[in-house]
């Protein structure tokens, strides 16, 4: 059984006097222990809201949740706040994008790491402190003992992100949700952090949900990739399948619009026209239709369902008129 099973998750933000915003509109995916699942999409596609819903971190007011999130067999939406607080940090942990805003600037890093240990593992005093130092060392922070006394601003961006990962690892969570964990970092530091996350998954069997907009990061890290557009998953496949044979015009468009280091120079970029805000409501059409190169009349009149790809095994697709298989060949493979 999957460790995390998200079924038909819906999140609607309601504001008095304004139109409701359907941020997440029926998203389903599951994650097994030791597996890395990617949620990919552009800003506003609902990937971060999905992660906040799983963590139970959405505000109570002005939010309507639907569907279910099963973690180890229990529906997280049925748990009391207290039970959820026990679970958060211990069984499910999260790494956020910007380490400067998710660390408390006026509290030393060491205190912030030991706080987790005290709350969830009941450790106290010197034991907690030495465990905290051990955690910092594990994520590759040099001189961990000294760093415990440092404030977040005294650490570099990469070290802050490491400290945050150390906090999330403090209780050896079974599920780690990483929301754009490397977006604020330089590429060489990004490579270090991604390597660290990979090690974690292979060494301790942690399940990892990786939320990112960077297709390159996904290609190197994720076993299964879900591509999201405007609150719904539009394509889902293993990474080799997805990158080798993208079938949804949005996925294909994304892959064609980014320059690649291993491609010959001078290949023109093919941007997706329009912007992510040009959407149609999923309820009555395909949201991507206004920007799609393969659009047909039925795309504007009825809503496609996420279904198994008739041409490719283990490949799910939400499209009436998908790209022919192997439009994009894996370059260099």
């Amino acid at each position: 059984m999957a460790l995390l099973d998200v079924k038909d998750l819906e999140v609607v933000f309601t504001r008095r006097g304004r139109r409701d915003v359907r941020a997440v509109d029926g998203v389903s995916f599951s994650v097994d222990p030791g597996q890395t699942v990617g949620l990919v999409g552009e800003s506003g596609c609902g990937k971060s809201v999905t992660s906040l819903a799983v963590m139970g971190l959405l505000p109570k007011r002005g939010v309507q949740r639907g569907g279910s999130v099963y973690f180890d067999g229990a529906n997280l939406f049925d748990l009391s706040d207290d039970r959820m607080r026990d679970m958060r940090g211990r069984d499910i942990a999260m790494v956020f994008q910007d380490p400067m805003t998710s660390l408390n600037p006026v509290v030393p890093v060491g205190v912030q790491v030991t706080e987790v240990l005290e709350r969830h593992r009941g450790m106290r005093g010197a034991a907690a402190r030495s465990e905290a130092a051990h955690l910092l060392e594990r994520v590759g922070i040099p001189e961990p003992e000294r760093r415990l006394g440092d404030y977040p601003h005294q650490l570099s961006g990469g070290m802050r992100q490491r400290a945050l990962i150390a906090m999330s690892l403090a209780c050896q969570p079974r599920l780690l949700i990483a929301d754009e964990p490397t977006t604020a970092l330089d590429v060489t530091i990004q490579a270090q952090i991604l390597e660290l996350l990979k090690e974690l998954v292979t060494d301790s069997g942690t399940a990892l949900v990786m939320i990112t907009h960077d297709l390159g990061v996904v290609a190197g890290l994720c076993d299964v990739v879900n591509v999201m557009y405007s609150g719904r998953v539009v394509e889902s496949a293993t990474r080799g399948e997805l990158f080798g044979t993208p079938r949804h015009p949005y996925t294909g468009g994304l892959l064609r619009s980014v320059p690649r280091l291993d491609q010959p120079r001078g290949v023109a970029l093919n941007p997706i026209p329009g912007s992510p805000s040009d959407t149609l409501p999923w309820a009555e059409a395909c949201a991507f239709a206004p920007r799609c190169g393969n659009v047909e009349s039925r795309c504007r009149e009825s809503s496609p369902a996420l279904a198994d790809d008739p041409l490719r095994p283990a490949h799910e697709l939400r499209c009436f008129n998908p790209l022919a298989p192997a439009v994009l060949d894996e370059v260099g493979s």
Partner: protein
Amino acid sequence: MTDRTLQPEAPPVGDTDGGSDTPLLQVRGLTVHFPIKKGILLERQVGAVRAVDGVDLDVARGTTYGLVGESGCGKSTLGRAVLRLVEPTAGDVTFDGTDVRALQGETLRRMRRRMQMIFQDPMASLDPRQSVESILTEPLKAHRIEAGPGGHTARVRELLDLVGLPANASGRYPHEFSGGQRQRVGIARAIALNPDLIVADEPVSALDVSIQAQVVNLLEELQDRLGLTYLVIAHDLALVRHISDTIGVMYLGRLAEQSPSDDLYAHPLHPYTIALMSAVPIPGPAVEDARERILLTGDLPSPADPPAGCRFHTRCPFRQATRCHDEQPELREVRPGHRVACHWAEDILAGRLTAHASAHDPTATRVEAPAP
């Protein structure tokens, strides 16, 4: 509107005055130090952040020079110093034969008409209370460009058309646009005065992936059409390689390597460039799995106290026992047009030296290089 193709027309503007073999922009020994001061009443300088520390570069007319490096390497400061948005501490900036550092007051202001800038975040660099028309006519008014019979309306319409925005955009305000469209407004503002040189500081990194390509293509179309010369500052190597003719790689305020774009990617010589390129994720799982990743250890040293010798030696996977820690390497030509600041570039090129630690050695990420 967005996939409009611009037809090449009249000869490029910037190329009309002869001597097109002399670079439009020449930078020699450019240095920008920010003083670190101590004391309240009697401030004394106790040190300096050496943001840019002796950089030479040439940008030929109608070409694109891409400057890459990680945050804190001084690439943005360099771009700003070229336009004198920060004052250089030393060195020369020659723009089309004019010594930019000698200009003052009105002459500098007039020169700025020919050197414009595109900023990273259009939301922050456009005044939210100004309409697009007002944003685009402001430079025209500031430089007393003669208006046509209908005022500047015709020029505004022409600019909007150039950047692929509808004519009715002129009455709208920045918040009414999407990120990509806002960046188009920023670009229209930069080309309003028919500049020769545009410094673009991370022009697409604030935009969504599917939008970045639109803006990159627009920049390329405008270059072809208007004969613009670009100095593009960015951290995304794949992007920089796509748009640049020449690339300079910066590390801690100095150029580590400078080369024609194709040669840099075919034969990276500096260990930093090699590591940087190996760290860029590629959206292809087969390529990703097969790659040898060179992980750098530690973080960028402080530019207030850069390491002696080669600035990269504290993190360098190819570091040797001699020369690296006590002798500063100069930028020298190793392949045609390809210059590198490394003592051991020939040995690295020939494969006689290999990196100390690879991605398969998990301890590689854990070991901090010893301080100098």
